[in-house]
């Protein structure tokens, strides 16, 4: 009962902090905040796909882009009402995710990474070459922030929505991760044959995880489209995908807190390195990633666990 209460208080406190930040931050900091939340939402989902289910796919940012492009095109070009456009976007991205997941499931190990990398690159190529329909290399911009229930989704409203989206993703993946489904995922990751011997349908588990996480990436992408009312193909390229992978690995793959910590850490790093490293923050990311993989295989969160254990010896159970 105590643990449950503590968890509830934790969630409420988190929600309160995010709400307070949404209502107070302005200008540059507001921009940083909402992009950070969107990236963290992606990181939590990617961590489930990669850290929990062990799928090394490079298509997460592509689905983010699919969500952003689809909602923009459906609502501006086809003039669909926002809820309709949103549902259609989710349906479309789930369908695409299934179309990638079912054949990719037959591939072994790192070949999934390559097939999904090719898919992600193709997405960028198609968006760049899509002419007026996709806005080509310039992307789509200048469309209006949507209005729901009379509230314009901009400024603090938008940040509240993104905060809720992040918390909902975190809560969903936390619940899933704790449940039999999360255990089945981790079993499939650790030893697919042994998992099957326990009755886990390996193919179905993999396909379900990929479809769910990819669709939720597309949902985050829908929100992204209205962060600046601007979508551009190069935002969804392979560099962003690598950084997302680095975030999860540096924070600690397979742990929700790890994904969030890694995301905040890498996201904020350039702010502090600032002029010192200039545009070469990617170099810092790469070096950090290599060093963490070599010396902290469980990431920052693993280090934290070790410290916490040392400070507070485990009570007798």
């Amino acid at each position, binding site marked *: 009962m105590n643990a449950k209460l503590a968890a509830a208080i934790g969630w409420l406190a988190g929600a309160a902090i995010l709400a307070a930040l949404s209502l107070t931050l302005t200008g540059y900091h507001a921009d940083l905040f909402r992009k950070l939340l969107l990236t963290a939402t992606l990181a939590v989902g990617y961590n489930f796909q990669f850290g929990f289910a062990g799928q*090394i796919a490079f298509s997460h940012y592509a689905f983010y882009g699919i969500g952003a492009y689809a909602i923009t095109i459906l609502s501006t070009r086809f003039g669909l009402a926002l809820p309709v456009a949103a549902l259609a976007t989710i349906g479309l991205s789930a369908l695409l995710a299934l179309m990638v997941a079912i*054949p990719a499931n*037959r*591939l072994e*190990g*790192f*070949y999934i990474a*390559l*097939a999904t*990398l*090719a*898919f992600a*690159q*193709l997405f960028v*190529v*198609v968006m*760049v*070459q899509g*002419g007026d329909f996709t806005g080509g290399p310039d992307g789509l911009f200048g469309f209006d922030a949507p209005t729901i229930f009379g509230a314009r989704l901009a400024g603090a409203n938008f940040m509240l929505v993104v905060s809720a989206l992040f918390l909902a993703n975190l809560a969903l993946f936390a619940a899933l991760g704790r449940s039999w489904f999360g255990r089945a995922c981790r079993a499939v990751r650790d030893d697919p044959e042994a998992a099957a011997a326990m009755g886990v349908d390996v193919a179905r588990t993999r396909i379900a995880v990929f479809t769910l996480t990819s669709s939720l990436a597309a949902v985050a992408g829908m929100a992204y489209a209205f962060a600046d009312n601007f979508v551009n193909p190069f935002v969804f390229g*392979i560099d962003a995908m*690598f950084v997302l*992978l*680095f975030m999860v*690995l540096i924070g600690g793959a397979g742990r929700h807190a790890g994904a969030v910590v890694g995301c905040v850490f890498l996201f904020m790093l350039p702010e502090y390195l600032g002029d010192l490293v200039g545009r*070469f923050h*990617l*170099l810092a*990311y*790469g*070096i950090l*990633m*290599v060093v963490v*993989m*070599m010396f902290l*295989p469980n990431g920052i969160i693993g280090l934290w666990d070790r410290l916490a254990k040392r400070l507070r010896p485990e009570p007798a159970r």
Partner: protein
Amino acid sequence: MTDLLELAVSILEAGGIYALMALAYLVVLRPTGIINFAVGEWATLASFFSVATLGWWNLPYIPGAVLALAGVAAIGALTEQATVRPMIERGAPILTPILILLGMVVVYREAAALGFGTQNLRVPPPLGFGRIDLGPIAIPMQSAVVIAVSGIMLAGTWAFFERTIWGKAFQAVAIDRVAAGLMGINLRLVAAFSFAGGAAIAGTAGVLQAPLTSAHYLMGLPLAIKGFSALVIGGVGRVEGCILGGLVLAACERLVMRYAPIPSGFAIGVPLLLMILFLLVRPTGLIGARGRT
């Protein structure tokens, strides 16, 4: 007719470079089991090194190119020593070095940008910008160089694997690591050598490409993707597969660019589509592997 011959030359030229990139993957993958995405950045580094040796220091072409390749080979071997070997010795899963090398992709690339800048740097071609007159067509000199050098390199690697005791040792390690180790093959040496060799081969592709397109810090990823597509198309296993894959890929790409009624930008998607198609329909490629991979 002239048209077709020119097309054939451009296919051989691009195919040679793609085949070299595929081979760079293979040389590392076979003995170590590591899919190494950093091959593209090795090509980048070598082409920047050639900017230094040929453009800045004005060395004669052959010593300059060899020096650039030696540099990148040393970087390959050092990377293996510093990041891959400790993980293998620690008994980490094979995914760990693969991910570390993914991190190294970014490290190499950004370091190259830091050292050489983000602009295009021209590299002087070894035999100038002239053309060789071959009756119906005149081949650009650099195309001839690319075809000749990549052909020699591919044939040389093939001969190494098929005809020398060292090459046999590589094959033995690829087929059964443990047994090869017991037979007295020095696994560490093979791993270091495979990284150095892979870097030199990818570097050759970079040095050949540089005079055509200039050296640029982002040139690695497209090469890495094309090399991988060629590898998958040809089949992960043999030098012949790399060559065939490189040529098939180049042929598809050039034919689409020339004849297909689509915007030329879509041609970039051809290797991606071909790779996906082969992964799904024929994952063993055109020429299957030999032994276990």
